[in-house]
């Protein structure tokens, strides 16, 4: 299991776009991929979860990835925030 704290760098006006990119990337991997924010844990493989999270630039979240392809998943997903 990998746990990584990251700060949101993207500042898209329309946050559904990065959410959709994260969704697409997350669904390529077998690992479970979770985002933890303010004690809330959500799956990055669900668009509704991602949209309701409403991440903002400057916020810190924790990425929790667990599974056989966790390293590849982290590499691909970390750049999307």
């Amino acid at each position, binding site marked *: 299991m990998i746990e990584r704290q990251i700060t949101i760098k993207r500042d898209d006006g*329309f946050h*559904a*776009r990065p959410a*959709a990119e994260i969704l697409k990337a997350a669904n390529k991997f077998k690992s479970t991929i979770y985002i933890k924010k303010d004690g809330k844990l959500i799956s990055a493989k669900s*668009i*509704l979860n991602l*949209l*309701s999270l409403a991440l903002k630039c400057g916020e810190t979240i924790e990425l929790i990835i667990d599974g056989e392809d966790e390293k590849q998943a982290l590499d691909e997903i970390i750049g999307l925030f």
Partner: protein
Amino acid sequence: MLGIIVVSHSEKVAEGVKDIAEQMNSGQVLIRAAGGAEDGRIGTNPVKIKEAIEEAKVADNILVFVDIGSAVMGTETAIDMLEKSIREKVKIVDAPLVEGVLAAVIQASVEQDIEGVINTAIESKNMCKL
């Protein structure tokens, strides 16, 4: 390919929801707006809805999202007017208009199963905003 029809009492709302959804569409969904009554008045127009559905007939499945009240009736009337081959592909989805359309378009980019796309759209009514 998936077809999505946005039905609203307002032509502007239908076009606006389509505009938002197109932001997330990488060509995998055919989106058509069918809003307002004749002459741009507030209301729904079964003929307009029928024509919008027909424009999406190349799609394997056509999901119709409606705003409120009689939009459902107008859509059902439109569906009744369709040729059988198109009618069989159409389904009205019980979901919020903006969230549902957006969720369906995005989900369709990661899932081929139409039931999964429909369920995601329906579940969008439970999405917390605050």
